[in-house]
């Protein structure tokens, strides 16, 4: 208990101290990592924990961005409320998509979610009147009780708490009976059903969670980039999010953070090689899925085990 309190206190101190040490742009990057991690957290839940491959995450992110923007432009709904409403609706869409898993799994599921992403992207592009078509649309500025949050420095105080709370929630979900049921389904659907788990309901719930997380992440990413470009919500982007999850490690929420940090920060170090960025990311995904399918996090835990093993031997 005291360890947890101490950990919480350290996190809070870092959270309030960071803005004093980091420049505006670095705070923006921290926000970008956090929002991307939230999107990828959705993949961790549905694919990493529940074992259902999903290429729908880019569509959820797009819906999560367009939803509040359209609600604000057409009905004057405040952006924060728009993001929440949209996230709940997209969660429901995710649940419906999860119902597909009754009949399909494996590569058919990958294909169906891929088609879903393609349809949603085409809908953005062809509904010119509502979404601005292929040109895209402006994301409205976040305003809460008269305060505007437009820069990395101010959004920091919104994005990080939201992402932090949701990560905590998912951490608890994974260690709850529901999360254990997800893991049981991943290992064997037949065995899970034999133990009395409602497989379809749980798979749908996992998709709903990934939709909800993806939509909130999409809303936050929209606030950060201030513009919604429909080309950012296609199958290519769905594979990108999958790559972040694989490189970080799909089995734990920590992997989502590690992967997002890698994918946001690597372009900074490779600024001279912008043209090769896509290739670098693709190669990272390929190398990791072949050599380290459980990502960077598993590398760290293996190292810890080696170090821990030595200590134990030393003690004995």
């Amino acid at each position, binding site marked *: 208990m005291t360890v947890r309190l101490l950990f919480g206190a350290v996190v809070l101190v870092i959270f309030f101290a960071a803005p004093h040490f980091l420049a505006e742009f670095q705070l923006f990057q921290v926000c970008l990592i956090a929002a991307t991690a939230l999107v990828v957290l959705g993949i961790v839940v549905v694919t990493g924990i529940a074992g259902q491959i999903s290429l729908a995450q880019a569509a959820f992110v797009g819906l999560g961005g367009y939803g509040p923007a359209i609600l604000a432009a057409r009905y004057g709904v405040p952006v924060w409320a728009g993001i929440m409403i949209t996230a709940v609706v997209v969660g429901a869409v995710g649940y419906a998509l999860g119902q597909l898993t009754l009949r*399909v799994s494996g590569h058919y599921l990958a294909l*169906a979610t891929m088609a879903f992403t393609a349809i949603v992207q085409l809908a953005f592009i062809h509904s010119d009147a509502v979404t601005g078509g292929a040109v895209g649309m402006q994301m409205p500025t976040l305003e809460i009780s008269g305060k505007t949050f437009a820069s990395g420095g101010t959004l920091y105080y919104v994005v990080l708490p939201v992402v932090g709370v949701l990560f905590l929630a998912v951490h608890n979900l994974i260690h709850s009976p529901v999360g254990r049921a997800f893991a049981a389904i991943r290992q064997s659907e037949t065995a899970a059903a034999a133990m009395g788990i409602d497989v379809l309901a749980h798979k749908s719930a996992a998709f709903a969670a990934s939709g909800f997380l993806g939509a909130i992440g999409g809303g936050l990413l929209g606030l950060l980039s201030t513009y919604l470009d429909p080309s950012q919500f296609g199958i290519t982007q769905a594979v990108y999010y999958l790559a972040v999850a694989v490189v970080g490690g799909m089995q734990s929420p920590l992997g989502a953070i590690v992967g997002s940090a890698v994918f946001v920060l690597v372009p900074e170090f490779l600024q001279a090689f912008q043209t090769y960025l*896509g290739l670098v990311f*693709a190669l990272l995904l*390929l190398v990791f899925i*072949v050599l380290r399918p459980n990502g960077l996090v598993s590398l760290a835990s293996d190292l810890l085990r080696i170090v821990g093993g030595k200590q134990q031997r030393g003690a004995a």
Partner: protein
Amino acid sequence: MLAQVLVSSITAGAVYALIALGFVLIHKGTGVVHFGYGDQVTFGAYLVLIGQAFIGLRFDVAVAGALVASVLLGAIIYLAFMWPLRNASLLARIIASLALGTVLREFLRSYMGPNAWPFPFLLSSTSVPVGGVLIVPANLAIVGVAIAVLVALYLIFDRTIYGKAILAACENSTGASLVGVHVSTVFLLIWILASVLATVAGILVAPLLTLSPDMGLIGIKGFTAAVLGGFNSLPGAVAGGIALGILEALAGTYVSSALKDMISYAILIAVILVRPQGLFGELTLKKV
């Protein structure tokens, strides 16, 4: 009007059929669904372009060079990625094939630029009126090649001992190796064959579509065609491709050309849901 739409749609359908044949070949032969196949098709066309524009080869020599290069590519894909992953989870294999496609696409984007390239037709692209309908020889070639590939593969799979060995190796690799089938050689040959087929498809398709790194997205259409046809049936893949081409053309003419792609993706989801065995395939039930 309707006749012209149908004739043009059969060309598009043959394109889908050709790509669908590649999917089915790999799936039937090795049990893997290759999500990067569309990008491999694009890569094949670029191989010709690289030979022609950068090495300065004659077009026919460049085509031959591309075919040789694609043999290598198929061997590399199998030996470096699919063989090490043969015991990996389905999830890992799906992601790996997606990653392969992405690597090929991003390689082209980095080294050949994101813009479209002109690509020559193998045959004349001027249309000839036949009985009031305009027919393009180059398009006819696509239909012809698709049918020829279908017949060749069908004969190999259904009429030769090698085809039986391939099917056995895929069905039960332990059992097949017990009766003397060299499973890894069979899989290697399938990947090489599929890779060559991708290049052939790329060369035929590139002049019709725009040859850019994103041409590989056509893979989803090939996929839809394969699903329509049942994913394990070679004639089904061709029938599915033609059916998809006609459906799209009708949707494009009578509903809206903007909705054309959406309709074909919706068909994909609907077929997966309602008839996962495809319109022409048969259902295989796994008894536990």
